[in-house]
C-alpha cells in the first residue's frame, strides 16, 4: 500500500498540477461550425481540438469527477484547515520557486532569452531575499512581477506541434497528445521529482517533495476545475473548452 501511495502521489501531483492550471478546448465538430463561417462573430472565439475518443474521455471525466469530489476535496480541505493562508502561500511560493528550471529551460528553448534572464533574476531574488523562495519578493519588482511562465507544452507549441487528440487522463484530467509529452518534460525538469528521476523510488525521502507538491496544489487546482464546470451547460465540453483556450493563450504569450 505504501509503495502504491508513493507511486501514485507524484503522478497525482503531476496530473493535478496540470489540470489545476486553467486550460481551454473545443470539439472538432463544434469548432468547425463556429470558425470562419459565422458572420455574427469575427473574434475567432471558438478553438478547435480533435476529440476522437470522446465516449472514453467522457467516461474518464466522470470517473475523475468522482475522485476529485470524494478523495481529493477532503484532502484539500484538511490541508487548508491545518495550514493558515499565509503559510499555504509561502509553501506555494517555495514550490514555484524550485520549479525555476522548467520556466528557465523552456524560455531558452523558445528563444526567449530575455524572459529566461528574468526567470534567473526572479529565482535569485526570491531565493536570497525571499528566504529560499518562501516570499515572492519579485512581485514587488516591476520588471519581474509579470513574467509569463513557460513550460514544455508551450515549447512544443512554439516549435509548431499541434495539440493532437484531446485526452482525459485518469486522475490528471484534461490534456492533449502534445501536452502529455509536455508534462513528461516538465516532470523531468522539476527538481522536486529528481529524487524519483535519478534514484527511482528506492529512497525514502524521494516521495516527500512530490507528495507535498500534490497536496499543496490541490486546493487551487480543484477550485479551477470546479469553476470550469460551474454554471456549465455541459461540464465535459466546458472543461475541454477552458483547457484548450487556456493552453493556446499560454502558448501565444
Amino acid at each position, binding site marked *: 500500500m505504501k509503495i502504491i501511495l508513493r507511486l501514485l502521489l507524484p503522478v497525482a501531483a503531476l496530473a493535478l498540477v496540470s489540470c489545476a492550471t486553467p486550460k481551454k478546448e473545443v470539439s472538432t465538430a463544434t469548432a468547425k461550425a463556429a470558425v470562419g463561417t459565422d458572420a455574427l462573430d469575427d473574434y475567432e472565439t471558438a478553438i478547435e481540438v480533435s476529440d476522437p475518443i470522446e465516449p472514453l474521455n467522457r467516461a474518464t471525466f466522470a470517473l475523475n469527477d468522482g475522485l476529485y469530489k470524494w478523495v481529493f476535496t477532503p484532502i484539500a480541505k484538511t490541508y487548508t484547515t491545518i495550514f493558515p493562508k499565509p503559510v499555504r502561500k509561502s509553501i506555494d511560493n517555495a514550490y514555484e520557486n524550485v520549479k525555476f528550471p522548467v520556466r528557465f529551460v523552456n524560455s531558452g528553448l523558445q528563444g526567449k532569452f530575455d524572459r529566461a534572464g528574468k526567470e534567473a533574476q526572479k529565482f535569485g531574488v526570491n531565493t536570497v531575499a525571499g528566504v529560499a523562495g518562501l516570499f515572492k519578493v519579485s512581485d514587488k519588482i516591476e520588471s519581474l512581477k509579470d513574467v509569463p511562465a513557460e513550460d514544455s507544452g508551450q515549447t512544443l507549441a512554439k516549435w509548431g506541434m499541434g495539440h493532437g487528440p484531446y485526452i482525459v487522463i485518469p486522475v490528471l484530467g484534461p490534456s492533449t497528445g502534445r501536452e502529455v509529452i509536455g508534462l513528461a518534460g516538465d516532470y523531468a525538469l522539476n527538481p522536486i521529482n529528481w529524487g524519483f528521476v535519478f534514484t527511482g523510488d528506492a529512497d525514502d525521502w524521494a516521495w516527500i517533495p512530490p507528495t507535498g507538491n500534490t497536496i499543496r496544489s490541490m486546493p487551487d487546482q480543484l477550485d479551477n476545475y470546479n469553476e470550469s464546470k460551474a454554471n456549465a451547460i455541459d461540464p465535459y465540453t466546458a472543461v475541454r*473548452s477552458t483547457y484548450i483556450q487556456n493552453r493556446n493563450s499560454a502558448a501565444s504569450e
Partner: protein
Amino acid sequence: MNRRPFVALLFSLPLITKGAAADEAQARLRGAIDEVLAVSDRVSSRSALATTVRPVLQRHISFETMTRRAVGLGWKQFNAAQQKKATDLFTTLVIRTYSSKFTPGERPVITYKTATAPAAGRVDVPTTLVYKGSHYAVTYRMEQISGWRIADVVIEGVSLIANYRSQLDSTFKQGGAEAVIRSLEQSVSRPS
C-alpha cells in the same frame, strides 16, 4: 509649401482615432467597474449581489450580443420571443457565474494596461486583477453598441463567449432553439 507634415498627419489620423477610441472605451470600462464595486460594497451576500448588480451590468454589458454569439449560427433560427427568452436566461447565468466568485468584504485590485483597438468600433482592455491573493489576467472586449459596452470577458485566455458557444452549438444541433432554451433553463435552475 511643404506638404509632408500634412501627409503625415493624414496617415496618422486612423491611429489617433483608434487611440481616442481606446481611451474612451477604457474610461467607460473603469466607470462601469467602479460602479459595480460600489454596489458590491453595499451588499452582504452573493444572492443579494446578483439581484442588485443586474440593472447596473445591463447598462454596461451587451448581453444580447453575448447571447447571440454564444449561440452562434443557430441564432438566426430563433424567433423574437426565443431570442428574448435565451438572452434573459443567459444574462442570469453569466451574472450568477461572476457573483458566485464574490466574497463580501473582499475588494479586488485592478490594474489597467494599454488598451488596443483590433478593429473599428472595438477595443480590448487588458487588466490584471488581484483577488483574495490570486492574480488573474482579464481582458474586457468592448464594442460600440449604443455607446461603449462590454461584449466579452476573457479570463486567463478563456473567452466567456467561446466557452458557452462550444456547449450551445452542439445543443442547438441536437434539438434547435427549444433545446438551447431548455438547457439554459436547466443550468439556471441548478444550484450554483
